[in-house]
């Protein structure tokens, strides 16, 4: 585990040696900031109209601002995570530095975990930056901070799943673009899979709902930490990372 952190630390720093780390952070904050501002304006206007006409305002801060905001974050993940995971292992292969990693006293599994953690650290950092928005609401209003908290837990778990898919594709190719495209397609498919649920039999529907990565986020959005959904996310990551490990071992010719 200690050596995984060595890799994670180095790769996390690499994000900020190249422009990619700054690019991810700034574009992320730009889009979410814009969304937050628009949502806030809308909410303020609604409340103003409500107070003029005497109609009660039914929407809460959480429903009107925070939930849509996290829908946006989720969408951004879909585009940005393939970009931050694509280089993780493909770059090592292309630069022939994989030969260094695999001849150091460190196992393929530790390498995979280290790579996974480096991207997870970057995503967690961007998420920490977005804490500004609920903080602003907290200063000026009275949002449900418990729900905000569970949403962040959910988002970290969700992004971990996305990253693990990215790590997996990155182990299979030297080409970063291919890794990014395959990651994006896989994530998109996991997103839209429950659209197919309506047209299927009972059993298929429940299976698809179980597989669908977004369904499992719902409880976190409602302010709950559901064991079932947490287990789903954790096992999703473990399977994807295990497959990445198998990918590396296969290329070493040991399988």
């Amino acid at each position, binding site marked *: 585990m200690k*050596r995984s952190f060595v890799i994670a630390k180095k790769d996390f720093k690499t994000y900020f*040696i190249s422009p990619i780390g700054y690019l991810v952070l700034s574009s992320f904050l730009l889009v979410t900031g814009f969304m937050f501002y628009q949502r806030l304006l809308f909410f303020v206007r609604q409340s103003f109209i409500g107070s003029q006409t005497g109609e009660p305002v039914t929407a809460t801060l959480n429903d009107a601002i925070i939930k849509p905001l996290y829908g946006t974050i989720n969408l951004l993940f879909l585009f940005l995570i393939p970009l931050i995971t694509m280089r993780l292992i493909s770059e090592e292969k292309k630069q022939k530095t*994989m*030969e*260094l990693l*695999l001849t150091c006293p460190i196992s393929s599994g530790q390498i995979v975990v280290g790579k996974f953690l480096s991207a997870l650290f970057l995503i967690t950092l961007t998420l920490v930056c977005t804490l500004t928005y609920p903080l602003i609401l907290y200063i000026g209003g009275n949002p449900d901070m418990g729900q905000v908290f569970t949403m962040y837990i959910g988002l970290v778990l969700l992004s971990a799943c996305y990253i693990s898919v990215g790590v997996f594709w990155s182990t299979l190719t030297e080409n970063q673009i291919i890794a990014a495209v395959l990651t994006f397609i896989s994530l998109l498919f996991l997103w839209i899979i429950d659209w197919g649920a309506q047209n299927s039999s009972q059993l298929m529907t429940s299976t698809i709902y179980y597989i669908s990565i977004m369904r499992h986020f719902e409880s976190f959005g409602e302010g709950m930490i559901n064991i079932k959904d947490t287990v789903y996310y954790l096992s999703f990551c473990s399977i994807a990372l295990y497959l990445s490990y198998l990918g590396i071992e296969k290329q070493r010719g040991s399988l």
Partner: protein
Amino acid sequence: MIEVRNLIKNYGAIRALDDISFTLNKGEILGFLGPNGAGKTTTMRIITGFISPSSGTVKVAGYDVVEHPIQVKKKIGYLPETPPLYNEMTVSKYLKYVAELKDVHKDRISSNIDKVVELCGLKDVKDRIIGNLSKGFKQRTGLAQALINDPEILILDEPTSGLDPKQIIEIRNLIKSLAGERTIILSSHILPEIQMTCESVIILNKGKIVSVEHQKNLSKYLTGNNSYEMTLTKADEKLLRSIKDLDKVLDVGFISGKDNAIYIDAKGHDDIRAQLIKIAICNNYEVLEFKNKDVTLEDVFLKLTTQEDVNTI
């Protein structure tokens, strides 16, 4: 120290290594010699644990590479053919990273870095970005990386390829200075290089061991041969005849493509150079150049492979 038994590696239908076996004792320097695609890199990659063998075993200091990879990797410093460098890092940060990966104790990291920087002559470029360094410095950084955890075994894959002559000499001297308590395997396709640095040599061709030679025996291919080249102001049949009359001369003839140059093959190990020159001068020929015929790797291979054919017949 290193024990390789019946090593086979297949890449799909291609057999890259075919039944390679050898042992190497502590403190020895072994050279792999062979043309491209002979299996030098593959053998090294298996010993270092980068790839797995299809069958056969490799034991390093008593540990099996497949069963105890971590133990084995701790003992080995490896410089691949392309030095594994991160172009965006500085030399010292890179070395620190590798030291951490190789589990060098925290207190020893900075002293180890200083040591290898000194040893590999990287002092002036320590804080420069690796991507901006010249090929020679990159190669040295690669070597420094292999030495960072003070390994008992060094495996160097074509450590001098792509360097200029001055750098080649420096790297060779460096390797020589590292010998002693360390066990070293290095590969090359340059015969004199292997001869200069290694105590024993394994010649590989098409995935098989063609020959295992001690350094002294190897020198027969280089200097002990009795083939000479003579360039004169004028060469004709008359001179050839008089040379051929010497009883040790096996064959003599013109070298195609060169004017007034002849080759002489002689048998036995007696030196007939003096006689040859005397004959030329006594017959009023002027000798411009006289030398032992250059032995190329191709010649050695030809010799070894044809010898083998004769044996099998």
